[in-house]
């Protein structure tokens, strides 16, 4: 079970509390986790990644285990502690004023 923390706006949109949990089979990657989140909460489609290209939205960041994984390849395996559910995968709205 992968733990995912969404930013406040997306929690409101999805109607969830701080953390959501998704099942991912096989190698756990950023793409697989986000696919699972979007499947479980389809209202989030297009809010984290471009719907066409799958590219991360410019002002969205992905953190885990105190590392910025935003620019990691989407198919790279996530840290083992995320895979084991010991640490959450964080979706974060970038610091950008306003």
């Amino acid at each position: 079970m992968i733990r995912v923390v969404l930013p406040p706006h997306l929690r409101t949109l999805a109607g969830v509390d701080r953390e959501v949990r998704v099942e991912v089979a096989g190698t756990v990657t950023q793409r697989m986790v986000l696919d699972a989140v979007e499947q479980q909460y389809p209202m989030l489609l297009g809010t984290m990644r471009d719907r066409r290209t799958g590219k991360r939205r410019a002002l969205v960041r992905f953190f885990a285990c105190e590392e910025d994984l935003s620019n990691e390849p989407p198919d790279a395996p996530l840290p083992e502690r995320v895979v084991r559910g010991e640490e959450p995968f964080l979706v974060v709205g970038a610091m950008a004023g306003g």
Partner: protein
Amino acid sequence: MSGVRLLVGTRKGAFILTSDEARRDWAVTGPHFGGWEIYHVNGSPADPDRLWASQSGGWFGQLIQRSDDGGRSWQPVGNDFTYADPVGDHLWYDGTPRPWEFKRIWHLEPSRTDPDTVYAGAEDAALYRSTDGGQKWQELTGLRTHPSGSGWQPGAGGLCLHTIILDPADENRMYVAISAAGAFRTDDGGASWLPINRGLRSGQIPDEDAEVGHCVHRLAMHPSRPETLFMQKHWDVMRTDDAGGNWREVSGDLPTDFGFPIAVHAHEPETVYVVPVTSDSEHWVMDGRLRVYRSRTGGGEWEPLTAGLPQENCYVNVLRDAMAVDTLDDCGVYFGTSGGQVYASADAGDTWTAIVRDLPPVLSVEAQVLP
């Protein structure tokens, strides 16, 4: 007793303001979608409790929200706004080709007859339609692929399709306006489009009376005269009486003819409202005085309306979608400002009252009359 519901979009959420027919006391709910930019909220003429909201932001993109109970509850619907292949290019600010790229929905225009049908105007300029209650959106490609489309350039606010007017007499005819391309009309339900900019003159483009390239800020129509349109252009207030075939300037004695919104009285097709601002570089009302100007002659002759509006130290703007009228016997007129005030007049503009004073900057105002 009937009432009025105002749908207000702001930089940081939506607000719903309701009153009875007297329009003296207002209840305010919101913010809905707090923290998000709400470019537009609009209601279905066929089912006033069906509302649509364009919710967007730099972080998480575009959402469309729908309410089926007059704004008490909302549900996100489809947000897949795809440019049909081949996507092609338009011109960027520096004159180089740039692929069309979706940014946001500026305006939502519900069908007059079908609550499940709604049109959406996008930046980069494109027109979409949903016929299933907002679940799926289909681009009406004939507009963006007009031969002039590859030459359209954005205005300062982006290449935005901000005005959609559905002809009440002809379901196949509609008008749109794009900054900074101009006004366009379709007579075949959106399959093909005609630039309707003859008579416009814009000193900010090399060919002042070019077929396209004009920064049209807003169009308005009275439903009893669907061939007459009023336009607030970047500079100039214009009118056409032949469905856009020819425009003539009706700025007349306005102190400045730069502005954004324009609206027509609900029962008097020759009564028109604008809110002039100082200039293209000073987007605030002139001389620190908030004045709505009304023409009862279809333009040309204008009178300032000031009763109840601040007449000193006022430096707000009123954006293009932030003015509306209601259809009660005594026509109500409403507008919202960049300073977060929403003003109401229950007597066609003679006197004004601030319903609220401290909302986030107002992007849009729509008025519904409820049974």
